[in-house]
């Protein structure tokens, strides 16, 4: 039996220990395993709002993995020259589905878009969230008031219900979801941290294969069942990534460096 509340830092040891014991383990040893199987042409949900909740290591693994012609669904379209921006720069993304591609440092996307080298489906943020949720919850389509009368509803079915106007929106589902959580266990149960929760819980429900990178893998039973945000049923692979420098021992440690590296996006 496992000691309760013992942190398991070495995910690959955990996986080996569980092998053949008739136990579920969704833990994979490395980010390369976590993104295995992404195919050319796939749609991929990528968590995060700005840099909070961005699955940085998984995006880097996707970059290394090589799949092309991707449709990326993510609130933003990359920052600086790393992560999604690097994926875009390599010409691997056919289409972005997002609410807010334009940011102070989104020069990679901006240039590709202006050059007509990447498609953009612009979706109001709440419709984006609700369409992802609908996919996960088996809803075929829904009437939303957001966007009615704007160019983003052009060509879409509208209806007045009880005196209010709505536009019909359809689910966004994907082959993969790449998300970032705070802690996870071998069943795939996840908890998040502060506003880094954002799109993770809904994206986890809407993909055929959901991959979560976590700061820490904990023993089964350590996460309080009342506080699990993403039940493991939605998660297929969990991979532990190196602890973020400003998060020591699972507690936030405010420090000058963090202000410089992670504050604005």
């Amino acid at each position, binding site marked *: 039996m496992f000691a309760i509340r013992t942190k398991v830092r070495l995910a690959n040891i955990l996986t080996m220990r569980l092998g053949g014991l008739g136990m579920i383990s969704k833990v994979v040893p490395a980010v390369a395993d976590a993104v295995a199987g992404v195919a050319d042409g796939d749609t991929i949900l990528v968590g995060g709002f700005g840099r909070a909740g961005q699955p940085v290591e998984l995006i880097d693994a996707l970059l290394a993995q090589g799949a092309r012609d991707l449709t990326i669904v993510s609130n933003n379209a990359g920052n600086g020259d790393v992560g999604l921006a690097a994926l875009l720069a390599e010409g691997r993304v056919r289409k972005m589905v997002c609410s807010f591609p334009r940011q102070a440092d989104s020069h990679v996307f901006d240039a590709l*878009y202006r050059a007509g080298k990447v498609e953009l489906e612009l979706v109001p943020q709440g419709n984006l969230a609700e369409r992802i949720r609908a996919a996960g919850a088996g809803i075929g389509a829904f009437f939303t008031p957001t966007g009615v*009368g*704007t160019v983003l509803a052009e060509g879409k079915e509208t209806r007045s219900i009880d005196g209010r106007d709505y536009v019909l929106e359809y689910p966004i589902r994907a082959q993969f979801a790449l998300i970032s959580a705070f802690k996870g266990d071998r069943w795939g149960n996840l908890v998040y941290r502060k506003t880094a929760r954002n799109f993770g819980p809904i994206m986890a429900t809407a993909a055929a294969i959901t991959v979560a990178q976590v700061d820490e893998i904990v023993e089964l039973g350590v996460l309080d069942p009342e506080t699990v945000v993403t039940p493991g049923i939605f998660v297929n692979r969990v991979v532990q990534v190196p602890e973020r420098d400003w998060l020591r021992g699972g507690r936030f440690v405010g420090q000058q460096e963090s202000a410089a590296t992670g504050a604005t996006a």
Partner: protein
Amino acid sequence: MTSRISRDELAARIARDIPEGSYVNLGIGAPTLVSNFLPRDQEIILHTENGMLGMGEEPAPDQVDPDLINAGKLPVTELPGASYFHHADSFGMMRGGHVDVCVLGAFQVSERGDLANWSTGAPGSVPAVGGAMDLAVGAKQVFVMTDLLGKDGTSKLVAACSYPLTGVRCVTRVYTDHAVFDVGESGFVIRELFADNTRESLQALTGLSLTEGAS
């Protein structure tokens, strides 16, 4: 001639109109200033679209937490009584009419309350809408905070928006550096005049027929 109040004065003016106990969403940019003027002896609960109620002030530089940001992706703090939730729940909160007030910026507001604040429609610009359309249709009251005139001197209050719309008939009230306007049944109603502005001077600036209402 002092025909305008400052942006800080305008933020303070808006803050005075937010009742205690309100749930409030402040849009990116100038509206964020309103939080600096909310009364310290009252509790007004700030919502941020990226999944939090009970948002507090900007942290000290040595207390910045990259996992704790607002809709503008700037670092914030959490107050006692805060809560976190995911994006579908956060926007359900707005779309479902649970947020009492949101304050948004504007390119244009029309006489019937249409809002244009997300795109100038300029060719080559990269469009980005974020949560603006959800806020515009969702909050019980949509306040706009804006200069009355654009940089080119044209009025942001218009008969009909020429820029792409954010929402239709959604704006309740417009706070400008010249005056406060309610969106009435038949056009803008002046609620309050700042400095030496008059109905006539505002009509001249906007080219609109304005009425004066009891505030």
